């Protein structure tokens, strides 16, 4: 590193999905070791692009690196598991039906691809409010995962397709949540940390998750209903009751091997750091997966 790249501050950018966790980690680790951090969001794509352009030391990724990225030298290790969930306004005209019966993947696909226009059609009720679909305009991994989810088994919608099908796209998770909070007829998707209150883990704002009717039988069974609190949700994710996608592993990545300071931080994340994960609304890696990650890191690219 030369003086031109800002010396010993560890710079991190990328997906806003893992952003809150990484900020907590950096906070704690920074206090312990006197390392300084500069962390910003921008979306997973930005993080990848930034490490390639040597703008940051670490990219936060909300998805697996793609083959093309690995070919160019991207080196990624998993750090935790997060998930994305469909969201609506708390005063949605059909909120009761949604919370009662949830929506199936096919329902959501119809909504997000605009095959269905009104809430009435969705739940078969006498409600003719039009649905407003919001998407993400930044390079969002969450959005990409959502496209993979919506497409079903072997199919996927690209971010771009989704963007163009929506009624408006917002630059980041928080902005989407805000838009949902401000529009009773809106639907979108959020990383769950933008749905449940960060501190309490309860549903406090105007945003509500849409329960997923996994088997598509038109109602929520006992094991499909876990949206009351964040902890409940996370437990379900950990138990595999929520599908992946939209649940997914998230990664920390660099261009080639990590620089020294960065590497020490990642090592810490993969050891001591894991204990903070649950408290902050994410699912920690399973033990063998964690070991694998630690070996990976030690080995290098």
């Amino acid at each position: 590193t030369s003086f031109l790249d800002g010396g010993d501050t560890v710079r991190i950018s990328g997906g806003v999905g893992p952003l809150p966790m990484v900020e907590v980690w950096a906070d704690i680790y920074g206090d312990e070791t006197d390392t300084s951090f500069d962390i910003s969001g921008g979306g997973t794509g930005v993080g990848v692009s930034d490490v390639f352009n040597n703008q940051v030391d670490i990219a936060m990724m909300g998805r697996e690196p793609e083959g093309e990225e690995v070919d160019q030298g991207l080196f990624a290790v998993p750090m935790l598991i997060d998930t994305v969930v469909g969201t609506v306004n708390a005063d949605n005209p059909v909120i009761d039906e949604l919370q009662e019966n949830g929506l199936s993947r096919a329902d959501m696909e119809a909504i997000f691809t605009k095959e269905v226009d009104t809430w009435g059609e969705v739940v078969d009720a006498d409600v003719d409010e039009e649905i407003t679909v919001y998407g993400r305009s930044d390079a969002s991994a969450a959005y990409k995962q959502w496209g993979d989810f919506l497409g079903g088994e072997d199919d996927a919608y690209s971010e771009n397709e989704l963007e163009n099908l929506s009624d408006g796209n917002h630059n980041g998770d928080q902005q989407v949540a805000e838009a949902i909070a401000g529009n009773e007829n809106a639907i979108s998707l959020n990383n769950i940390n933008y749905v449940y209150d960060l501190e309490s883990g309860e549903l406090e704002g105007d945003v509500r998750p849409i329960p997923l009717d996994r088997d598509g039988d038109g109602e929520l069974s006992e094991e499909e209903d876990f949206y009351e609190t964040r902890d409940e949700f996370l437990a379900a994710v950990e138990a595999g009751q929520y599908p992946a996608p939209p649940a997914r592993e998230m990664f920390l990545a660099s261009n080639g091997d990590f620089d020294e300071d960065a590497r020490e931080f990642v090592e810490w994340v993969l050891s001591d750091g894991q204990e903070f994960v649950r408290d902050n609304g994410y699912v920690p890696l399973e033990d063998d997966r964690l070991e694998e990650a630690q070996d990976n890191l030690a080995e290098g690219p």
Partner: protein
Amino acid sequence: MDRYTEQRLFSALARGAAALVVAVMILVVAVTIFRGGRVFLTDPAIAITPPGSRYMLEGDGGFLHAVLGSIFIVGPATVVSAVLAVSTAMYLQSDYSSERFSDAVNMFLNVLWGTPPIVYGVFVLTVIIAIGARTSLFFGIVAIAIFQYPIMTRYTDEALRSAPDAVRETTYGLGATRFETAVMTVRAALPGVIAGIIMGFARGIGDAATVLFTAGRSTNMPGGPFQGATTLPVLIFDQAMSFNAEVRSHAYAASFVLIVAVLSLIIVSKLLAGRYARYAPGGRHS
């Protein structure tokens, strides 16, 4: 339509248009002042409190980093740009360059003047990547300085042109060198020159597009010239989109700070210009 009806109609329209513009402006300022002022005045410390480590998520701490970022970026940029602009404008005067040359340069300046600031941002970022550097306060300064340069040069050039020829004849007639004369011409045109520099400063301090990609959009306190930084407009842009109502309310407080800064700048410039206008040759008579 009867010509007198037409006359009445259009003077009413003109009045209406002016009233509309003024009303809209009052609305904008009032919203900023009230919403921002309320937030700011209940807790003025947020402008001088450094951001917490999760500022953008939770709004803990204040936005001192952006206030300082604005000062550390726009201040030096204005100085650099003003020096360059005044020098260029001096060179464009007839003692140094031919009319054809200054016409040509003026054409380039016009294009630069009209170039969208985002292009400067892209340009500087491209350079940053090419030389293997990282976005930082320093490159924010570079981008803003490039952005301000054509603005200041045009104002300064105009001001120098309007300085009476007799000033130049006088100083030359006393045996002054070209440079001594040029300095005196700048003094003679000082109110205009200052106005141009302040104009550049005001545009620079309000612009977000140039620093968006170049200064690093950092959420930390500026740590040095080659550390990331942010400025108030960029921060407001980021804050405005926040889910956290507290962060969003900070956007209004930051706007309030920004508006107050810009307005005081303009007032200061008017006062300064007025002071020097006393000395302007022919000022009293024309």
